[in-house]
């Protein structure tokens, strides 16, 4: 492969001309007999750049989560194709970490925080001795040092979601797929985690696809916001978010451009 405009990301040279994720006319329908009736996704064509923070919004039940699960390889689309860094996606992979909304169900309740994070490292056959420094760094990064030996059931929702993010980072992903990760958290915790995930994606130049039903969250976090319409979900609008980075919970949200985007998104979704 000829490398043009090569840029080093996580130690590997990436061809900037090839998008991180490329969806081509992706569709999904359930049931064979009358496909139109149970068409969930239709004709999703979208490229996501390396290092981009892409937010997907849409009404609840619109198939946002289904789309993310297709990107993760947990579901196969019934039409079209998904490529990750040029390779067709045929199943789940450690390269594509998915952070589930229901964090309490995605953690192993019988393992403490350290051992939950270690699960990812064990799956990569990293020796226990080599796991320690990696886990220590992740605990520090996610602010979990004091919870290291606690069990998920003893932690607040925000802390549990931090554990899930830490475990996903431990699998050394090339992309983070986040499914309404902060939807069930209180406002303060949500804002804190929004800023942490922004910092994380900038530091590691991580590509992030972030599903949310919170329009302001999408504008605050995203480089782009994709709006999905209802049944079957298709892309009805893509908005480039021209807000400067680093973003700030106060000033960014008061920026007239932020409010304009919010206005636009709100009226779009109301119509659907």
């Amino acid at each position, binding site marked *: 492969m000829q490398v043009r405009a090569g840029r080093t990301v996580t130690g590997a040279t990436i061809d900037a001309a090839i998008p991180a994720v490329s969806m081509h006319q992706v569709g999904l329908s359930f049931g064979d007999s009358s496909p139109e009736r149970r068409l969930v996704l239709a004709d999703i064509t979208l490229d996501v750049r390396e290092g981009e923070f892409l937010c997907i919004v849409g009404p609840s039940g619109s198939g946002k989560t289904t789309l993310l699960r297709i990107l993760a390889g*947990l579901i196969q689309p019934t039409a079209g194709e998904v490529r990750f860094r040029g390779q067709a996606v045929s199943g789940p992979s*450690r390269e594509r970490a*998915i952070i589930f909304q229901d964090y309490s169900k995605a953690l*192993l309740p*019988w*393992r403490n925080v350290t051992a939950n994070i270690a699960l*990812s490292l064990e*799956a990569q056959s990293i020796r226990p001795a080599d796991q320690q420094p990696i886990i220590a760094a992740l605990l520090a990064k996610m602010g979990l040092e004091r919870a290291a030996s606690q069990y998920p059931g003893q932690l607040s929702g925000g802390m549990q979601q931090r554990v899930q993010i830490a475990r996903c980072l431990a699998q050394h992903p090339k992309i983070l797929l986040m499914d309404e990760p902060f939807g069930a958290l209180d406002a303060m915790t949500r804002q804190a985690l929004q800023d942490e995930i922004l910092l994380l994606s900038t530091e590691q130049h991580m590509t992030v696809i972030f599903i949310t039903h919170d329009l302001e969250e999408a504008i605050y976090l995203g480089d782009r916001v994709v709006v999905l319409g209802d049944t079957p979900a298709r892309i009805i609008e893509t908005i480039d978010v021209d807000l400067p980075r680093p973003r700030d919970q106060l000033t960014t949200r008061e920026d007239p451009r932020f409010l304009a985007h919010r206005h636009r998104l709100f009226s779009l979704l109301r119509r659907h």
Partner: protein
Amino acid sequence: MRRLLLGSILPALFIVFWEISSRTGVLTLESLSRPSDILRAGIVGLADGSILVATGQTFETALLGLTLAAFAGIIAGAVLGLSPVLERVVDPTIEALRPIPAVAFIPLALMMFGFGVSMEATIVAYACVWPILIVTISAVKAIEPRLLEVADVLEMTFVERLRKIILPAAFARINVSLRVAAGIALVVAVTVEIVLNPRGLGYSLILAQQSLRVDVMYAQLLWLCVIGYALNVVLLNIGPAPIAVWRAGR
């Protein structure tokens, strides 16, 4: 303590009444020994080692059968619990084999293995495998699907998945089935020994009965009661501990 004291009033009165009535000649039944004779027979049996040797033999086969059943039941249960299609294929066969009383296989097992450990352990395993298998299937089916997706995304192998996700997640229910099966194992082992296998506690029992040593027979019955109780205590309190350590991952 107070409860224990209150609870032992009735058995104590019963034993005293039994002893007195048999000594005064009110009770002259052949099938009833005296509590004092039973105690003596028990002490003699324990002292000369005959009871302990028989216990060892019974436990050996019961445990062997239980272990076989646990391995087969848990692994097959995990596979069937994960694959609804396979379960639908196998389920009618399970339901057809399950109601056959394990002891009905004694003649067949005797032809195949002859007297001894293998024959008895096989029958024990047959009796024990069903509760373990059926509970494991339902326990694995009930595992949070998210956890299996986590395993998918981490590209875990089947063995890794079994060790780190499936068995620990299904552990609590499988543990209950193992306790149930342990009770069954003891019952079936003693039954096979009484019916025809010349070893273990069951054989000692039938031997005592045939030589009209009613006191010895009662002593062994009491001993069975003690070890059955002890087995349950062990399974309840000590058994889960090492598994819990393993389950915690590190």
